[in-house]
């Protein structure tokens, strides 16, 4: 167990050190969520006046929840890029030779994604509060919202890790990024699902991310949410993509890293 924790800690420390000391990694992770938040909450705020749009905490909080989950998911995707880069540089191969239990490597990357998400969420929240975001939910609600962000971050990391373990090249970046981008934007991004129209409404109704976004929005405004549905889907996604990532890890092991 001690050796498992040592490997996990070493992977975490190396990746976080790279993340924090390399502006090319750190700045886009911070700037892009802030940019989306600015563009959506600032530029589209009058969408909150549309008849039928009833969100007590206001449009800034409405968009904050989407950007929060988006940033958490993309932190996971970027962690997947890091895994692929480690394979390309040969570092992952050496790491797999050294680690007695390779699941510890995966655990390290998951910890990296959570840390990255925590940093980005902190900056985003501070900016949103300065911008005048209203939070009408209680502390327990906010904890529930952050838990959803963590679930989505881990899910995206497990998905991207599964792709990275299988392809072992950074050229697979679009295969990690595009599905996450699509699933996030085919959800109720700008308005609640009942105000969507056309084919996107139909897709959003069955999109598994929709209940997570709706729950996060409900929590920040202190509204009642369908917690069983949101956290149930979250847990299901974690199980499915954990299996995907672990089987990918086994393939990488079989291929000799």
């Amino acid at each position: 167990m001690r050796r498992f924790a040592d490997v996990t800690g070493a992977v975490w420390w190396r990746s976080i050190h790279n993340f924090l000391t390399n502006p090319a990694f750190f700045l886009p992770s911070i700037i892009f969520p802030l940019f989306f938040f600015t563009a959506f909450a600032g530029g589209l705020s009058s969408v909150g006046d549309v008849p039928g749009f009833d969100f007590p905490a206001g449009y800034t909080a409405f968009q904050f929840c989407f950007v929060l989950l988006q940033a958490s998911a993309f932190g996971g995707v970027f962690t997947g890029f890091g895994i692929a880069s480690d394979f390309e540089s040969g570092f992952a191969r050496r790491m797999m030779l050294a680690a007695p239990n390779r699941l510890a490597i995966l655990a390290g990357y998951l910890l990296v994604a959570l840390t990255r998400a925590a940093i980005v969420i902190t900056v985003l929240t501070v900016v949103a509060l300065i911008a005048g975001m209203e939070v009408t939910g209680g502390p327990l609600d906010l904890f529930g919202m952050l838990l959803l962000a963590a679930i989505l971050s881990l899910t995206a990391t497990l998905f991207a890790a599964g792709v990275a373990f299988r392809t072992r090249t950074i050229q697979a970046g679009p295969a990690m990024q595009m599905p996450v981008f699509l699933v996030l934007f085919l959800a109720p991004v700008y308005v609640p699902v009942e105000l969507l129209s056309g084919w996107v409404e139909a897709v959003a109704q069955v999109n598994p991310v929709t209940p997570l976004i709706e729950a996060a929005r409900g929590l920040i405004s202190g509204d009642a949410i369908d917690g069983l549905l949101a956290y149930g889907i979250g847990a299901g996604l974690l199980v499915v993509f954990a299996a995907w990532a672990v089987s990918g890890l086994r393939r990488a092991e079989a291929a000799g890293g």
Partner: protein
Amino acid sequence: MNTVPSLPAQVAQIARRSLLRTLRQPAQIVPPVIFPLFLLAINASGLDAATMIPGFPSDSYVDFAMAFAFMQGAIFSMMNSGTDLARDVESGFLKRLAMTPMRRTALLVGQLAGVLAVTLLSGVVYLVVGLIAGVTVETGVAGVVVLFVLFGLIGLAFASLGAFVGLRSGSAEAVQGFFPLFFVALFLSSASLPRELIEQDWFRTVATYNPVSYLVEGIRSLFIFDWDGQALAVAFAIAAAVTCVGLAGAVRALRTQVVR
């Protein structure tokens, strides 16, 4: 006997090369076509409710959002021209070219012509898909002609900026680093809502000073209004001014890259 090809022949050769190298790389064709259409579909559905805001200038958000797709296509032309020229610097192609009688003007004009052809082609795709989705062009057939002239000029403006960055930096990575900046400019404009309906003062101020807003409004006017001479004149003027700045920078950078 003079064996040096004429300037138009040189331009045609480089334009053909530019066009073919773009068409042979799906990564340079697919995103400029697919990405704007995908965002158009998302926004048309997601923001259709915005047409219920009092004062919204159109009954259909797809009509309103078509300009957004065209602007994205123009921004991708910046990426394509810049990346291609930067690769020419990186690969030493420009240095080899310096040993030939090829004129610098031919290289730049040919490269931009090739990129422009791809940009206009993507514009045709946006329009066809839009029309299938029920978009109407209020200014009619003449409006479509003006649309493509304006779109071509805006595409040229962004392509010349891309050429400037590509030639100045000599790095495809640097061009790609600049690319998001132009997307930020597009998102911080009146592309999603009319300026008068933007509630946040600071955002409306940024959008008002952002030249991209006027390019968007020029294109949009052709879709949702009857002829709006002022919006078109401002859009043409800004596109022409940006083209001049981009070309001047690109010509200057080319002088340092192709030294004879």
